[in-house]
C-alpha cells in the first residue's frame, strides 16, 4: 500500500518513491576494520554520483608510526596500481609545544608512480591514538578525464603531535576507477570505520 499525501506518493512497496528527492549526501557503504589488512570498496563506485566522499573514523593501526594510504583499480583491470601524480603537505604541532611546522613532504608525493598514495603520516598506535579525515574522489567513472582526488586527514602522530595532512592528485588514466583500497603501510588496521558517501 502506498503512502500518498496531497496527491503525491511518498512511500510505496517498502521504499521511498523514486520521485522524492532524498538529499544530496547518501551513505553507500560502511566498512569496519577488525584486525584487517585492507578495507576494500569493490562496489558502489559508478556513474551514479560525480563525487564520492570517504570518511575515516578513528582508524587505529596495529603498528606504530605507519602511513595510512590508498590506491585505485580501473574497471576491468586487476590490482591496485593505477598511475598517480600527487602532492602532500602538512601542518604539525607537538603536545610539548615543539615541532610546529608547515612543510611540503616530498617523501610522500608521487610523480607517475603506481604505489599506494599516503594520506596520513606516522600514525601512532597508542590506545587512544587514531586518524580521522576525508577523501573526495571526483567523477571516477569518466572515460575522458583523469580522476582527481583531495584528502585531508587529522591524526595523532607517533611523536605525540597533532598533524593535519593535505593530499591532492589524480589517477592519470582515462579508464573508470571503480574500486578503492585503504591500508596502513605496515601491519593491520586494528579498528576503525570508513564510510563511502555519494554526493549528487
Amino acid at each position: 500500500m502506498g503512502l500518498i499525501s496531497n496527491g503525491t506518493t511518498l512511500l510505496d512497496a517498502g521504499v521511498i518513491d523514486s520521485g522524492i528527492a532524498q538529499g544530496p549526501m547518501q551513505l553507500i557503504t560502511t566498512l569496519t576494520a577488525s584486525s584487517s589488512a585492507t578495507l576494500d570498496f569493490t562496489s558502489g563506485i559508478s556513474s551514479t554520483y560525480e563525487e564520492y566522499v570517504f570518511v575515516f573514523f578513528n582508524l587505529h593501526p596495529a603498528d606504530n608510526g605507519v602511513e595510512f594510504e590508498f590506491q585505485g583499480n580501473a574497471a576491468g583491470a586487476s590490482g591496485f596500481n593505477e598511475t598517480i601524480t600527487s602532492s602532500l603537505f602538512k601542518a604539525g604541532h607537538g603536545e610539548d609545544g615543539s615541532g610546529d611546522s608547515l612543510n611540503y613532504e616530498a617523501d610522500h608525493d608521487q610523480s607517475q608512480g603506481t604505489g599506494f598514495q599516503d594520506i596520513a603520516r606516522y600514525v601512532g598506535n597508542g590506545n587512544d591514538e587514531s586518524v580521522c579525515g576525508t577523501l573526495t574522489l571526483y567523477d571516477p567513472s569518466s572515460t575522458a578525464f583523469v580522476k582527481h582526488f583531495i584528502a585531508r586527514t587529522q591524526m595523532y602522530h607517533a611523536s605525540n603531535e597533532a598533524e593535519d595532512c593535505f593530499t591532492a592528485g589524480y589517477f592519470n588514466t582515462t579508464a573508470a576507477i571503480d574500486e578503492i583500497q585503504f591500508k596502513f603501510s605496515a601491519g593491520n588496521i586494528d579498528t576503525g570505520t570508513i564510510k563511502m558517501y555519494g554526493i549528487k
Partner: protein
Amino acid sequence: MAIISNATTIADAGAFSVSLGDQVLIKSFVLDNVSSTITLVHGSSGVVLDDTYPFYRFVFTSIHPGTDNIDFQVNFRDGGSAYDAPKTTSSFYAFEGESTDSAFSYNASFDIAQGTGVQGLAGSLGNGNDESASGELLLFNPSSTTYIKHFMAKTQYYNRSNYSQIYHIGGYCNTTAAIDGVQFSASSGNIDSGTIKMYGIKGAAN
C-alpha cells in the same frame, strides 16, 4: 493530512518534512547582535551531540563581529559545564591583500599544546559593513570513550587589514571523555550577524 510520529511531523502537504539525506540539519542559529558566545550542548534546545551521529559538521556563514579586529574561536566541553577540553592543534594560513601583501605561513599564535583555552578559527577579523568570516568545523566521533577527538576547520574571512585570508586548523581534544558541547565565540564584543548551522552525518561509527 500530516503524518506525525512521536510529535514529529514526518510528512505534510505532499512532501517529507524530515531530512531524507544522510546529512541532517540539527540546529540553525541566525545571529542577530547576540552575546559573544553561541553554545550547542547535547540535550539543550534540540541539539544532539552524542553517538546518534559519528560525524558532525558546523557551517558558519557571514559571521560579522560588532567589534573590529577580533578573533572568531571555538572550544569544547568534555564533562562538567566548562568549555575547557585539553587540545593540541596546528594552524596555518594564506592571505593576499587588496594591495600587495601576501603570505603563506604556519601560525604559531593560533596553535595549542595541551592547552584548555579557546581555539582561534579566524584572527583579526574586520567589522566593516561588508566584512565577515565563513567556513566549517568537522568533529569526528565526539562520543567515543576510547579515542581522542579529532577536528578540522577552515575559515575564509576578511582580515581587518583588507586581506582575503584563509585559516586551516587541525587538532584533537586530548581526552577519552565524550565531547557533548561546542561553543563558538568572539574574543571581544558581540556577533552582529551571521548563521551557524550544525549538521549530523548519518551512520554509526565503530
